[in-house]
């Protein structure tokens, strides 16, 4: 119980592929209640455990179900079968700067984004200086974020997300966007989080990133789990198939 941060049990997610979808009133009335669809199982009976304090990578080909799994972990999609248990506070970062309003200043957006990510105003106020210095936006903090460079935008979004000090952080390919300095800073941050006993779950297409950062890996193929466990053997096995 204490050494498992996230446990995924027999997870399955189905998508309906509509041949003829009723999304206008006319088509619903004309065709009656029936819409024609096929089931597509994006995830089939996936079970694994993420140990506490690990950096956990999800690897697999395009369309293997990595993003679906990540979205299930982030509670955006709901599994059709099985369940996910998260021990501790969870935050997810599928996109940096979600909910940023372009006309509002960086400062206003930090508070807005913080509350979207589940932080209280007190928490954001306490960590505000830390957020701004980690993002490195300096005096731009009172400018509308639409004037930010894309790097500044991403850095500010990332800083807010990690400032929440979640026990479990779920990250999509966001690291690919920043420059080298920022990527290095992210890695340092993830290492710090691991030392504090926090768990990071990430998806990346770059195997070198995964090899570099993750100590545990799960390999998905066509919605099924092909292997999970220590990083090196699983990555080797995956590499053998590519």
């Amino acid at each position, binding site marked *: 119980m204490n050494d498992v941060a996230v446990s995924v049990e027999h997870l399955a997610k189905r*998508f309906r592929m509509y041949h003829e979808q*009723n*999304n*206008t*009133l*006319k088509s*619903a009335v004309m065709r009656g209640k029936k819409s024609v669809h096929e089931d597509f199982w994006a995830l089939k009976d996936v079970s694994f455990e993420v140990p506490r304090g690990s950096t956990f990578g999800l690897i697999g080909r395009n369309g293997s179900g990595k993003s679906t799994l990540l*979205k299930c972990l*982030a*509670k*955006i*999609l*709901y599994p059709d079968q099985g369940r996910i248990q998260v021990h501790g506070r969870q935050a*997810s970062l*599928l*996109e940096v700067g*979600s*909910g940023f*309003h372009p*006309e*509002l200043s960086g400062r*206003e957006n930090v*508070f*807005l984004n913080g*509350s*979207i*990510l*589940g932080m*209280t*105003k007190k928490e954001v106020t306490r960590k505000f200086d830390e957020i701004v210095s980690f993002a490195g936006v300096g005096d731009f903090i009172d400018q*509308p974020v639409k004037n930010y460079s894309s790097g500044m935008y991403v850095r500010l979004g990332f800083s807010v997300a990690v400032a929440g000090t979640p026990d479990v952080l779920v990250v999509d390919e966001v690291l690919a966007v920043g420059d080298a300095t920022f990527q290095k800073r992210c890695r340092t941050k993830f290492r710090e989080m691991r030392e504090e006993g926090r768990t990071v779950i990430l998806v990346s297409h770059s195997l070198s990133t995964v090899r570099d950062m993750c100590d545990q890996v799960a390999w998905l193929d066509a919605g099924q789990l092909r292997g999970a466990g220590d990083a090196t053997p699983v990555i080797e096995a995956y590499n053998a198939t590519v």
Partner: protein
Amino acid sequence: MTYLNELMSSRELLANLTAREVKGKYRRTVFGQLWSLINPLATMLIYTIVYSFIFRARLEVGDPSGLNIYPLWLMCGLLPWIFARNVINSGMTSIVANGSLIKKVYFPRMALPIAAVGSFGFTWLVEMGVLLIALAIAGSNFWIYLPVIVGTMLLLAMFSCGVGLVLAIVNVHFRDMQHLVGIALQMWMYLSPIIYPISLVEDAANKAGHPWILTLYRLNPIERFSTVFRNLMYDNRLPEWGDLLACLVWACASLAIGYGVFSRNEKKLAELL
């Protein structure tokens, strides 16, 4: 009930989303928040000219206040209606409009339509404040009814919130809804005694020998709300208990249905958008 707890714990998110709407709406405009006052004033001017001067609509004398001013009478019904209409409209589109947010972050989705209630509620509060000042200058003595006025405002907010919640879900499935509702809202306004007094309907129904028309007409919840608001603010008397009770029932029923429909469908939203 767990969902309700979650919604309660995201109070700050609600406050921030509301602030985002309020602040973002008039950014980079010269008049800023003043626009939210200019809009109803312009509407008031148009209706006053058309109905009071051109059509010579019958003036309603406030009983017992003795007020006899069409624009003030109009605004007592029009401001609540504009609020309800805006909440229903933007509550309905809030989910589709924030699709990218819903697909990327988890939070109680109900916060989005409720933030629409908050941001228009803020505008409405200011408008009602200005109207009450104007009424006080004109000699209306509504002060002892102020708690009832605030209570009725709350009930109207609950009612329109519930309608918005249901339509938000329907609109995700059928995008036709937002266009249909635009027309329906326009018809709804003319089916409610907002720019004309209900006595016109009563006279016409009696003259035609079909008094049941009035009964049917009074099934409209907005009719009850505007009657109550006018009783309190323009006439300065307590509304009939039946009217107040009808407002209460409509508000609770609408909110309960809206909450039920929304929370049952919420989990599928990210997939459907």
